[in-house]
């Protein structure tokens, strides 16, 4: 018996969200009284996983793998390690690999889980559904369970252990899927990875005014985002659209500038811990969902905020 966790890397380094996923998997292995096996992909230093409770580290080094190859590899390891729970983070790679593993292991899969299981027999988790407008308590009835963890829902918990490390060769599988190019948004912080997200709405009037959002994001080390109408009008790329049919945001701080807060937008961002709203309309529905609000013109408030934040950052650097 074991709990298996997928520890992927970006340029050889574990992302914070990966360490959160490993911490979460450790909590499940504690609940079940079984060992935690971490499958490390292309890490330059996999010993870091020991700090978060991995008892065994399975080290895979390979040229880029596609989702089917990842799934075949993880499925084989899960079988060898007799894993009853397989945990992945709900990031881009986790989202495409998790269902493939679930099919191979005939396992029930629940994505967007927000906490440790509320019960292990029957195995019951709480997950987000209705695009963040509700939660569902879901039982997984199969012998093996696959769990996807929603970002920023558990946190990183250090639990130092000493792990055994073994090397593993990625599993071969028949596939025609071949990567031809990767285009990273260099120099920009991805919404999925950001602790702080600054987002602009239609109230900014035109595309060029988004320099305000970019400047505010730069001071805060934040990612930039936008509401649906803004991306529909082509002021900003689709990849910045956050909300029900865009990207979900689960940041520590979400700052919404000139966004009224339609129900679809709120659904996508309400997992953020602290929400700040700046809007000229005191009746904007977003104020009801926010923690801090300023009624005012973005073109006056935001430049002041940028200036004061620069001073604050200089003092607290």
């Amino acid at each position, binding site marked *: 018996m074991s709990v298996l966790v997928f520890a992927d890397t*970006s340029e050889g380094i574990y992302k914070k969200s990966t360490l959160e996923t490993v911490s979460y998997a450790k909590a499940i292995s504690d609940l079940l009284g079984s060992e935690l096996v971490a499958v490390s992909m292309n890490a330059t230093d996999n010993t870091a996983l020991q700090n978060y409770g991995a008892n065994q580290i399975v080290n895979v080094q390979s040229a880029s793998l596609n*989702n*089917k190859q990842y*799934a075949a590899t993880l499925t084989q390891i899960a079988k060898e390690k007799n894993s009853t729970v397989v945990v992945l983070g*709900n990031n*881009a*790679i986790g*989202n*495409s690999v*998790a*269902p*493939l593993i679930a*099919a191979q292991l005939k396992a029930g899969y629940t994505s*967007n889980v927000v906490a440790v299981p509320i019960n292990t027999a029957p195995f019951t988790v709480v997950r*987000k*559904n209705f*695009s963040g407008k*509700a939660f*569902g*308590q*879901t*039982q*997984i*009835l199969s012998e093996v369970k696959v769990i996807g963890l929603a970002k920023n829902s558990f946190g990183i918990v250090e639990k130092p252990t000493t792990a055994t490390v073994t090397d593993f060769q990625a599993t071969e599988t*028949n596939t025609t*899927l*071949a*990567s*031809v*190019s*990767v*285009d*990273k948004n260099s120099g920009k912080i*991805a919404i*999925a*990875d950001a602790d*702080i997200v600054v987002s602009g709405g239609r109230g900014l009037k035109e595309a060029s005014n988004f320099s305000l959002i970019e400047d505010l994001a730069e001071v805060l080390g934040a990612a930039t985002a936008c509401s649906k109408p803004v*991306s*529909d009008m082509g002021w900003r790329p*689709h*990849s910045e659209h956050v909300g*029900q*049919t865009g990207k979900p945001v689960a940041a520590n701080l979400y700052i919404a500038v000139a966004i009224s807060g339609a*129900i679809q937008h709120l659904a996508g961002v309400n997992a953020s*811990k*602290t929400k700040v709203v700046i809007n000229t309309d005191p009746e904007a529905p977003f*104020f009801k*969902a*926010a*923690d*801090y*609000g*300023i*009624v*005012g*013109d973005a073109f006056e408030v935001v430049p*002041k905020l940028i200036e*004061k934040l620069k001073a*604050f950052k200089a003092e*607290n650097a």
Partner: protein
Amino acid sequence: MKILVCISHVPDTTSKINFNNELTEFDTNGVQFVINPYDEFALTRAIWFQEKQGAKVTVVHVGDASTEPTLRKCLAIGADDAIRIDAVPTDGFFVAQQLAEIYKQGEYDLILTGKESIDYNGAMVPGLLASFLDIDFVNACISLEIDGTTATAETEIDGGTETFTANLPLVVAGQKGLVEEKDLKIPNMRGIMMARKKPLSIVAPVEATAVTEIERFEKPAQKAACKMIDANDVDQLIELLHNEAKVI
């Protein structure tokens, strides 16, 4: 080229979400149902292949008779025919097994669908389906071209995009970007009239077991009231974010 587009029938994005029977059932009272927005992107791209490359587009859906208007809308938008698998979907595993059966009977070249439904957000049916059928899978697709039997698909990855090539058959799960918002079709009167005459076949489900079960729903906790800050006092906001929320 034959394209199978899998359609989910979901509450409109503006719906208020409520539950009945001690929070065990979704309350459909007053809720307008629509084609799942992600599936609509997929359908719109499929229709583009129909118009430009002569593809035949079949839509398929698992649901009872009450969901038929959603399938008729797909036909009015331009799908050639529709299949309704007559069952109330229990979970993603059940649905994917039903869809796999349809694929096997129809010799399709491409399965196009949305990356998730906006109601249960399982985000698993496309991947399960690909894995059950042992064909390649592209998730979070934002651009798709087909040339003969080769597909070129751009997908969203964390912090960027990645482009793949793959041979057909292929399962592609789309999202925003696959088509532009302005390309989404509103059925016109002619389309609606034609949809009435297009074939909509009803098939019995195959035996399949669900592996998950929703026990109960919860609504997010009510928020404390928003603290309002004077527009001339942004220092106070910075102070609160630093000392109270501890986020900067």
